């Protein structure tokens, strides 16, 4: 089974997080960049399956050059390889474009299961997995508090404001996990050494073709202001 985990680089939540007042974009110099805690849990769900099953785990990110450090950490935790979508044209990409690009990369890469965090700690959109699943035309089982992976399906518990449900989807599928799923393992020394030899593939927009092009409909930031302290 090929499991692709979507990992995003975010500002460390332990520091002050800032927006650039001119662009409305994240001020990436404002605080240390780390792998989002929720995506570590997504990776953990994949690695826990790999612990006792035959599975290949790939960490995929779209992000600036600095995101490669976070990919290294994913590899040190246990991912087999990583894909970095890196292209300066993507700076400030909105949700719609991000989803198109990630979906195009997944199609190129191939996958049986895609695991994402339910909601990033910076953008907090909580929609990217849904956008990607719709592009790929596969089932979405989102906001899972628990994850049970089998060779041909995925099941879990999902809690909303209205109640808790048990859901199941056939593979291939996209899922997202919540803070209720297991905490991530720490990379050990052996993992860190091994990570240095694992492959990281870098793709630009040109590598991904027309499906990754920006859509004509786009979201635009008009103004950003800071609350007086």
């Amino acid at each position, binding site marked *: 089974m090929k499991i692709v985990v979507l990992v995003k680089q975010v500002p460390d939540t*332990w*520091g002050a997080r800032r927006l650039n007042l001119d662009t409305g974009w994240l001020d990436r110099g404002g605080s240390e960049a780390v792998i989002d805690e929720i995506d570590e849990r997504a990776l953990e769900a994949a690695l826990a399956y790999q612990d006792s099953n035959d599975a290949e785990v790939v960490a995929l990110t779209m992000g600036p050059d600095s995101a490669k450090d976070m990919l290294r950490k994913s590899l040190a935790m246990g991912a087999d390889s990583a894909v970095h979508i890196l292209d300066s044209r993507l700076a400030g990409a909105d*949700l719609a474009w991000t989803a198109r690009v990630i979906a195009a990369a997944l199609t190129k890469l191939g996958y049986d299961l895609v695991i994402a965090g339910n909601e990033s700690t910076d953008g907090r959109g909580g*929609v990217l997995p849904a956008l990607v699943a719709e592009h790929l035309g596969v089932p979405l089982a989102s906001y899972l508090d628990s994850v049970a992976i089998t060779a041909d399906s995925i099941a879990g518990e999902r809690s909303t404001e209205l*109640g808790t449900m048990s859901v199941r989807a056939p593979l291939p599928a996209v899922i997202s996990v919540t*803070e209720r799923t297991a905490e991530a393992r720490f990379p050990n020394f052996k993992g860190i050494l091994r990570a240095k030899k694992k492959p990281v593939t870098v793709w630009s927009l040109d590598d991904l073709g027309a499906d990754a092009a920006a859509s004509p409909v786009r*979201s635009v930031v*008009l103004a950003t202001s800071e609350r007086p302290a």
Partner: protein
Amino acid sequence: MSNVLVLIETAPDGSVGASAAMLLGAASRLGTPVAVLAAAPGSAAALAESLGSLGAERVYLAETDSVSSLLLTPQVAALAAAFTALEPSAILVANSIDGREAGARLAVRVGAGLLVDAVDVRAEADRIVASHSVFGGSYTVESTVEGGPVVITVRQGAMDGRAEAKVAVVESITLDIDATGSTVIESMRPLPAASDRPDLRGAATVVSGGRGLQSKEKFVLVEQLADALGAAVGASRAAVDAGYVPQTSQVGQTGVTVSPQLYIALGISGAIQHRAGMQTAKTIVAINTDADAPIFEIADFGIVGDVFTVVPQLIDAIGKRSGTS
């Protein structure tokens, strides 16, 4: 005026979700509000009519048997059918778990843009502008979508305006749903009946408890103070992780953002991720045994003390003041 679609979420018992009134109110400021509802055949005709009282001018009722068995696919299909029929300028959904996902899938399906977690919306000349409150209220961002229609997820409890009641025109269609490519709902357990306490989002007073409460049994103290004040109950992530309260009560970075008149933090250290969800409260009161706890840095009133000693006295004093004990 252009049509503005609103996705109506329904509870397992068929009742209309709490976000409907706010969303229809917001839609009435942008165009003609159209409530879109996916429901089991024959189950929702009365409901559809009552949506007029919340401001829907039209109700688009999409009937399908699969509404309780397929995860959000019926809702997305209902929105997509309404989209084709009514050519809306905007589609509003709650920024709830289900609302976000249905909205996101629709946006891809019909090629609309997406603005998330809006706290306000307005129509401006030829565009729709959304305001967002970012990083725990530290920043306000205004955004719009260029080049096509927009799906906006609206933060629950963020907008007060309500639409005038209308006599809704109800239009029903039957949805033919292809179950392949859909996640199946195998079983559903509704939440226990809602308490009389106000909803955490939008409550004027919030009493939150943290790991300092020590156990689920002892967390009752938080609820008792909340009830004495007519407040909503919140919690830190540590309290949620320890199982004292459900995740829906979590305040903070990865929980609910609240902005009440009064926020009382009991046995909460005040980690930056917790503060991100409550720092815009008008008045913050903290009770903590540790005088160095970071929560005191942002508290307007602080009591260094044991919650199990201080809070019972506080409840007692409130009771005496209001003459109920």
